[in-house]
């Protein structure tokens, strides 16, 4: 009996206890985010997202610091009764689902988007995204995975910082301010194809 087996046994036990308890909560999420949590329309993919990030965002909907129009309309109400423990359990649950890349950006913008993602544009004071989000957009801790999110979601997030929403998400409001609409389209296109 080695440690790995004990680990698997424990995981199975946690899964058996946690998933039925989560049932109602997860069903509420899947109405918009899809049954396999791959996202749909403006609702982002949650599958494979960093649990530290999902938990933080659930808290920021609950505290109303994430105040984009769609967040106000859907997520403020959805998280109103969500306590810290449930938020953490949901975040861990979604992180274990396998993510699929949306691949719905413009293919001809991918090369430009990749260059901005990896190196930024120093002469325009645009920072490299890779330094925080990782070489393959994988994210880490409370820094989100961006790889394979949908073009529309990525684009609207980058635009909304420029419009004055979700200003508590330092340093993203500053980062997004330097990006032109063309550069946002390029970044969102590139990331939608990254697996």
């Amino acid at each position, binding site marked *: 009996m080695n440690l790995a087996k004990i680990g698997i046994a424990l995981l199975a036990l946690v899964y058996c206890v946690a998933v039925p308890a989560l049932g109602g909560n997860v069903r509420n999420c899947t109405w918009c985010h899809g049954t396999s949590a791959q996202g749909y329309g403006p609702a982002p993919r949650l599958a494979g997202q960093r649990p530290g990030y999902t938990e933080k965002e659930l808290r920021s909907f609950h505290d109303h610091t994430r105040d984009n129009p769609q967040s106000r309309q859907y997520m403020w109400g959805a998280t109103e009764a969500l306590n810290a423990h449930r938020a953490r359990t949901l975040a861990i649950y979604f992180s274990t689902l396998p993510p699929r890349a949306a691949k719905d950006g413009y293919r001809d913008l991918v090369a430009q988007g990749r260059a901005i993602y990896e190196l930024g544009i*120093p002469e325009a004071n645009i920072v490299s995204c*890779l330094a*925080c989000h990782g070489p393959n957009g994988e994210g880490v801790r409370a820094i989100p995975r961006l790889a394979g999110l949908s073009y529309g979601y990525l684009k609207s997030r980058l635009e909304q910082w420029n419009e004055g929403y979700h200003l508590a998400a330092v340093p993203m409001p500053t980062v997004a301010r330097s990006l032109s609409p063309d550069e946002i389209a390029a970044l969102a296109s590139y990331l939608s194809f990254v697996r």
Partner: protein
Amino acid sequence: MKAVGSQRLLHAAILAVAVCAAGGAAGAERGLQAKLEYCKTCHGLSGQGYLGYFPMPRLAGQQTIYVENQLRAFIEHRRTNPIMTNVAHVLSPSMVAALATHFKNLDARPFGGAPRDLAARGKPIYDEGIPEANVPACSACHGPDAKGHDEIPRLAGQLYSYTIKALRNWSRERGQGGTREDTSAIMAPTAHNLTPAQIAEVAAYVSTLN
């Protein structure tokens, strides 16, 4: 009539030069502020460093000569880091000097996050070295308070994971490209002689210093 005309012309010329100089200074100041905001996006709003996917080092209180040396090392590929090479390439010498001075004068609190028990074990390594392993006292060069001087960097308050990464990758990331003179060579044997556990201990210790 002619004399009055030329005097007016002179006044106009002086005024024009003054306006240009003031405009240039204001432009340079705006350029510096925009560049500082850019640096601080990654290195922290107070220059305290930041933990992204990679650790972004603390610049607050860093020695100006060290910062200038490193920015040059990125450009000359003596220090490998594709992001910072690109960043450094577009900086003029006067911009580098202004940025380095700005960060030297910042006094942010340490970023924190290192295991406390490791820090306690790192102090004797920092203060006295490990003679039997040919590790000299860090304090001998970096100073008893780890503030550094001239080309020797400040270590006080540096991010725990950044110092670990720097020491473990020393000879792969610094002193590259052969012929050019690079002061990083002096650290190579010491970085090599420290075990991974000792690196973590000494990195934890300096990360706690103000």
